[in-house]
C-alpha cells in the first residue's frame, strides 16, 4: 500500500510544521530543486478564482473567466488593445471594409497563419468557426442575430452579410467567443457547424482538453476547479511567446491568493480585496496593476406595482437614487478602486465619462431624497426587498454592499429587506422579472455601446415590467447605427439623461480591478475588453 511509503515522510513534515527544520519551504530541501527553480522562471503562474470556468470551447463560453484562457489560445478577426475600446485593431484579419453591395463587411485574412495544429488558417476555418458559434445557440449566438450569412470569397477573403447593415458587428467580432478554430480538427472531433449543430455538436469535451487556435499558447491540460495549464505555441504568428508554460491556478479565497503571491508561488493575484491591496503598497517585489473594467454593479428597480407599490412611482425610485452614499461605497468599501458612470454605459466608452457623471448623474442628496419621497406620496418612507447573489465581486461582496445600502436608505426612512440567494436563483428571478429589486453586476459580452443601450430598452426593460417610451427606443436605435462618432456621442448622452430620469437602473460603481503582480514581470497588459488579461502580452523583466 502507498501508505507504508508515505507515513515516514508525513512524520518528517509534521516535524517541520513543529518548527524543526526551520522555516525552509518544503520544496527547498529537494534534490533537483534547481531544475524546478529553472522551470519556474519560464512559467507564468496566474492566481485567480476560476470556479465559474465550465468549458473552454469558444462557441460555448458564457462565463466570466474563460475568455482570458480562450483569448490566449485563439485569435479573433479583429481585436482591441488595452485601454482603447473604440478603435479596433487587426488580428487574423489585416483589412476590412464594406462589401461592394454595402450589405456586409469583407475581411482580408493575414497571410500564412498556422494553427497550433500545423494546419494553415483559411477563410474556410473562419466560416466554420462563426457558423458553429451561430448555430450552436449558446449565449454568443445571440449577438449574431443580425448576421444573415458568412460567405467564403476565396482562401484569404470572407464576407459577413447582415440584415441591417447599419447595426454594429465589428466590435462584436472582437469578442473571444468568435475565435477562429481549426475546422478540420474540430470537425474530426465531433464538431458540427450546420444548422442543427445545437444537437449534433459534440466537440466541447475535446476542446476542454486541448486547443486548436492560432494564439500564443496552447491548452495543455485543464483540471476542473484546480488549474489550467498552457504551453507556448512556437509557431505563433506574432512571434515566440515569452513563457514556456502558463498556469492559471484556482484559488477559493483571497487570503490564500495573497499568501501565495507573497511567497512567490504565483506571479499575479486577481482576486485580492482592497485592504489586501493596501497592505501590498510599498512591498519591494510586488506591485499593483489596475485597470478600469467595463463591468459595473447596479441596482434594478421593478415598475410592477404588484411587487411594490412605491417602486412603481418614479419619484420614489429617484429618492432611492439620491439616498445612496456613492462616495462611501467607492472610497471605503472598495478602497477607491472604482469609477461611476451616469447610467448603463460604462465610462471609457463613447459618451460616458466620470466628468459627465458629476454633471448629470445621481448624487447623494438626503434633503432632495426626502422631498422626492413627499412627491411620491411616501413622506415617511416605505419598505422593499432587494435580492442579490451570495458571491464576491470587485473585492467586496454583494451582501456587504446590501448591508451598506440598508443603512444608507434607512437615513430617509426607506426600509431595505435583504434577500441573498444562490447566484442561480437570482438569475431565475431576475430574468423572469419576478423581483421588486435586485443588486447585480453586468459584464460586457463584447465591447459595443449598443449592446448596453439595447439591453436597457429591450430585455432588461421587460424584466422590470417597464415599457420604454417610443422616442427613447428610437433614440437608442439611432445611436446604434450612427457612424459619425461625434453625433453618436451626443445621442448616447441624451439617452443617459433620460435613463437617469427614469431611475430604474442605478449604477453603484464600475470597479477598477486591481491585480497584485510580482516585479519579476515587466509587461502586464490588463484589458477591459472582456478577457481581463492579454496573456500573450505578459513579459518577464
Amino acid at each position, binding site marked *: 500500500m502507498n501508505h507504508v511509503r508515505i507515513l515516514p515522510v508525513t512524520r518528517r513534515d509534521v516535524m517541520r510544521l513543529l518548527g524543526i527544520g526551520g522555516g525552509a519551504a518544503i520544496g527547498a530541501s529537494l534534490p533537483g530543486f534547481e531544475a524546478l527553480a529553472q522551470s519556474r522562471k519560464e512559467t507564468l503562474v496566474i492566481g485567480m478564482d476560476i470556479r465559474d470556468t465550465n468549458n473552454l470551447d469558444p462557441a460555448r463560453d458564457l462565463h466570466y473567466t474563460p475568455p482570458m484562457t480562450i483569448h490566449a489560445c485563439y485569435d479573433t478577426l479583429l481585436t482591441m488593445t488595452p485601454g482603447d475600446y473604440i478603435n479596433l485593431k487587426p488580428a487574423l484579419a489585416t483589412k476590412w471594409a464594406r462589401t461592394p453591395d454595402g450589405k456586409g463587411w469583407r475581411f482580408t485574412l493575414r497571410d500564412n497563419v498556422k494553427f497550433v495544429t500545423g494546419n494553415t488558417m483559411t477563410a474556410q476555418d473562419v466560416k466554420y468557426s462563426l457558423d458553429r458559434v451561430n448555430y450552436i445557440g449558446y449565449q454568443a449566438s445571440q449577438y449574431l442575430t443580425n448576421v444573415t450569412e458568412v460567405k467564403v470569397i476565396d482562401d484569404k477573403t470572407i464576407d459577413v452579410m447582415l440584415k441591417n447593415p447599419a447595426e454594429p458587428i465589428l466590435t462584436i467580432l472582437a469578442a473571444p467567443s468568435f475565435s477562429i478554430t481549426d475546422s478540420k480538427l474540430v470537425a474530426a472531433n465531433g464538431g458540427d457547424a450546420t444548422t442543427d449543430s445545437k444537437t449534433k455538436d459534440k466537440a466541447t469535451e475535446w476542446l476542454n482538453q486541448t486547443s486548436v487556435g492560432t494564439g500564443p499558447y496552447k491548452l495543455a491540460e485543464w483540471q476542473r476547479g484546480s488549474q489550467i495549464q498552457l504551453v507556448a505555441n512556437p509557431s505563433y504568428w506574432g512571434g515566440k511567446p515569452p513563457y514556456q508554460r502558463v498556469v492559471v491556478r484556482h484559488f477559493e*479565497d*483571497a*487570503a490564500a491568493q*495573497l*499568501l501565495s503571491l507573497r511567497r512567490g508561488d504565483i506571479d499575479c493575484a486577481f482576486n485580492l*480585496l482592497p*485592504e*489586501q491591496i493596501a*497592505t501590498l503598497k510599498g512591498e519591494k517585489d510586488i506591485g499593483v496593476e489596475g485597470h478600469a473594467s467595463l463591468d459595473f454593479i447596479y441596482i434594478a428597480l421593478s415598475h410592477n406595482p404588484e411587487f411594490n407599490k412605491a417602486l412603481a412611482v418614479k419619484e420614489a425610485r429617484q429618492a432611492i437614487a439620491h439616498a445612496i*452614499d456613492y462616495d*462611501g*461605497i467607492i472610497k*471605503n*468599501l472598495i478602497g477607491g478602486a472604482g469609477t461611476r458612470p451616469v447610467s448603463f454605459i460604462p465610462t471609457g466608452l463613447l459618451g460616458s465619462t466620470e466628468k459627465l457623471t458629476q454633471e448629470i448623474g445621481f448624487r447623494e442628496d438626503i434633503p432632495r431624497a426626502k422631498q422626492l419621497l413627499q412627491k411620491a406620496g411616501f413622506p415617511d418612507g416605505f419598505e422593499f426587498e432587494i435580492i442579490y447573489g*451570495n458571491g464576491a465581486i470587485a473585492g*467586496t461582496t454583494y*451582501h*456587504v454592499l*446590501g*448591508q*451598506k445600502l*440598508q*443603512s444608507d436608505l434607512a437615513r430617509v426612512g426607506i426600509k431595505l429587506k*435583504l434577500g*441573498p*440567494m*444562490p447566484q442561480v436563483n437570482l438569475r431565475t428571478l431576475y430574468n423572469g422579472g419576478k423581483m421588486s429589486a435586485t443588486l447585480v453586476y453586468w459584464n460586457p459580452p463584447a465591447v459595443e455601446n449598443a449592446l448596453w443601450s439595447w439591453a436597457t430598452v429591450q430585455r432588461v426593460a421587460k424584466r422590470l415590467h417597464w415599457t420604454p417610451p417610443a422616442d427613447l427606443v428610437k433614440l437608442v436605435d439611432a445611436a446604434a447605427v450612427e457612424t459619425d462618432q461625434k453625433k453618436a456621442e451626443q445621442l448616447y448622452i441624451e439617452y443617459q439623461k433620460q435613463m437617469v430620469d427614469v431611475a430604474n437602473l442605478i449604477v453603484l460603481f464600475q470597479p477598477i480591478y486591481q491585480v497584485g503582480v510580482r516585479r519579476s514581470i515587466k509587461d502586464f497588459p490588463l484589458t477591459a475588453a472582456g478577457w481581463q488579461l492579454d496573456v500573450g502580452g505578459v513579459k518577464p523583466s
Partner: protein
Amino acid sequence: MSEASAPILDATPFEPRARTSGQRWRRRYGLAVIGAAIIVIWIVVALAAPLLAHYPPHAVDVTVRLLPPSAAHWLGTDPLGRDVYSRLLFGARVSLFAGITVVVLGAIFGTLLGGIAAYAGGRIEEGLMRFTDLMLCFPPIILAMAIAAAMGIGTINTMIAMLIVWWPKFARLARSLVLVQRSQEYVEAAHLIGYGPSRVLLKHILPNSIGPLIVLVTLDVGHAIIVFSGLSFLGLGVVPPTPEWGAMVSENRELVEQWWGATFPGLAILTVVMGFNFLGDGIRDWLDPRARRR
C-alpha cells in the same frame, strides 16, 4: 451551578456519595463543573447581550471598517465597520438558541419515536427502525446542506433541516434504552398495577433511561452548534446581517491581516462547544458505574 447540575442529580440512579471528600469530588465532577460554568457564562452573556454590547450589532459605519482591537472596539471592527465584540455577544444568542432548540426538539421527537418503537415491537418497531436506519445512512451535514439548499436559506429553515437529520440517533438510543428497561421487573410490576403502556413508558421507563439521553443531548448541543455555524459559514445558515459566529468567520476569513474578524468568533464557538462537551463527558463519567465505584 445548581441549575446545571440539577438534571445530573436526577439522572443518576445513585445519590452522589462523594460529597464527603472534596478532592475526590473535584476529580470526578471537576470537568462537568467547568463545562457547566462555561455554558452558564455564555447563556448569561447571550441574555445580557444588549447590556454588555457597546454598539448595536447592525450599526454600519464604513469609515471605521476593519479597525484592529482597541479601547473603542475591544475586538476590532469588520468590513462594514461593525463592532466585532458587540456582534459576538449577539451571536451567542443565535448559536445557543439554534443548537439547543435543534437538539432538544430532535431528542424529544427521536426519544418518543424510539420509545414507542421499542415498546410497540413487531411491525411498528420494524418499520420505524428501518426508517431510522435509512435516515442514518445519509451523512448529516450533506443531507442538511441539501435540505437547507432545497428549502432556501434562513435560520428557521436551516434548523428544520438539521432537525430532520438529528432525530434518528436519539430514536436509536432511546429504543435500545427502553428495550433494556422494558424487561426489568419493576416495569412488569407497573403493568400488574394495571397501568397502560403510555403511562408505564412515561412514568417508569423514561425516567430510568434519561441518563444516557442527557449525556447525548449535552454532547450534541455542542455538535449542533458546530454544524449550524458550519452551515452559516457555507452561506446556508442565517440571513445577513444577523450576527452569527459561523457567518462572521466566513465574512472575515479572507482577511488574513485583519485576523480578529475571524479568530474571535471561532474562539467563541470553540469555548461554548467545549463547555458542552466537558459537561456531557462529565455526566457520562458520573453515570458510569466504574467511575462511581472509585
